[in-house]
């Protein structure tokens, strides 16, 4: 009886140990899934444009109008579209950004040949087929517009969801930081961070209103501008957050002889701040974001070293 009881306990233990596992990794897949969904909607928008261009090239060929660089450009375009889709499916943002750039380059390469082909058709090279071509061209453009409208709406909804999750996550984290009463983190610093978060929340609210009340054309026209505003606010928040933490570890770091590390991190944050202070510029922002990444990594390394020193 005693042995049977031991056996039963071992088995119950085994079942419990197995049953607990899924909860341990339940959070991250949601975040990854959201990134994947956003990238997939972005991919769909690119695909709408690419399909329209490829369709147009094929239609022009049907009228015996050749399109310069057609086969090379379309082959490269299809190849990079497949690459882009793979990156989106994997939720790989940096890989997606690289492939995205290539796809747009391929589309731009194809554009002059198509423009030329369209002009030839409209000048009558298509043996009186100009009006037929124009109807066909209008159809392609309408299909493309519908495709873009659907994708843009879905993308904007997902983006808004990500913005709200981001700000909630930061609010929670900030509240916890405040509760810990860490020496060197002042109430003013927390207040400043809260103000930046409020700006992010304000942008989200405006994006939500745009999504609810505007036409798809208005949404598409405003989307990029709002994304840029959001990116700037996020960069400002991360800079300010890291400055706050750096301030908190500054004294101990100096005592332990890590003044140079602190100075390097401080310089990176200041440089990033300079790059975004004049408003949004894609290249400046990209460089500032890279500096933020470096600052974050260096600060993590510094704290690790200080802990083990």
């Amino acid at each position: 009886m005693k042995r049977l009881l031991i056996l039963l306990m071992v088995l119950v233990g085994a079942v419990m140990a197995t049953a607990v596992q899924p909860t341990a990794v339940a959070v991250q897949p949601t975040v990854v899934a959201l990134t994947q969904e956003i990238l997939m909607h972005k991919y769909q928008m690119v695909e709408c444009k690419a399909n329209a261009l490829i369709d147009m090239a094929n239609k022009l060929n049907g009228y015996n109008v050749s399109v310069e660089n057609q086969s090379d450009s379309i082959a490269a375009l299809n190849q990079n579209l497949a690459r882009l889709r793979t990156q989106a499916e994997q939720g790989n943002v940096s890989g997606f950004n690289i492939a995205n750039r290539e796809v747009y380059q391929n589309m731009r390469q194809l554009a002059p040949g198509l423009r030329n082909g369209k002009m030839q058709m409209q000048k009558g090279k298509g043996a009186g087929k100009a009006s037929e071509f124009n109807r066909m061209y209008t159809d392609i453009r309408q299909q493309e517009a519908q495709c873009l409208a659907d994708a843009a709406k879905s993308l904007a909804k997902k983006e808004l969801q990500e913005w709200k999750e981001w700000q909630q996550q930061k609010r929670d984290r900030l509240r916890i930081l405040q509760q810990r009463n860490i020496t060197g983190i002042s109430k003013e610093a927390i207040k400043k961070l809260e103000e930046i978060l409020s700006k992010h929340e304000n942008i989200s609210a405006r994006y939500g209103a745009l999504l609810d009340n505007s036409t798809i054309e208005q949404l598409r026209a405003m989307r990029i501008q709002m994304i840029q505003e959001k990116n700037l606010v996020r960069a400002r928040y991360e800079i300010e957050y890291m400055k706050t933490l750096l301030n908190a570890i500054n004294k101990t770091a100096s005592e332990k002889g890590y003044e140079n590390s602190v100075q390097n991190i401080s310089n990176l944050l200041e440089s990033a701040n300079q790059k975004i202070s004049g408003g949004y510029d894609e290249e400046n922002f990209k460089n500032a974001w890279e500096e933020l990444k470096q600052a974050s990594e260096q600060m993590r390394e510094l704290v690790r070293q200080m802990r083990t020193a």
Partner: protein
Amino acid sequence: MKKLFAFLVLLGFLVFAFGCIGQDTQQGSGAAANGEISKQNNEVANNQPVNQPSAGEKTEKTAPVVSEDDIPQIDDIPSDIDENFNGTDEI
């Protein structure tokens, strides 16, 4: 009968041991991959930071109060740099 019983005990033990190892591995890798996010959620759920220094660390004068997990992860942002090409609008 005794052999069968011994076999069952061994089987039970093995399932238990592998179950525990699997759980540890997943939690370990999950925590590393989840980084900031899982920590935050744990912290929010418990209403306290997960990475508070332990009692031993607290008494150590030189330990930093800010931990590695306090430092934000800076993730890549999807680029919109090329979206000013408007498909057939450009033709």
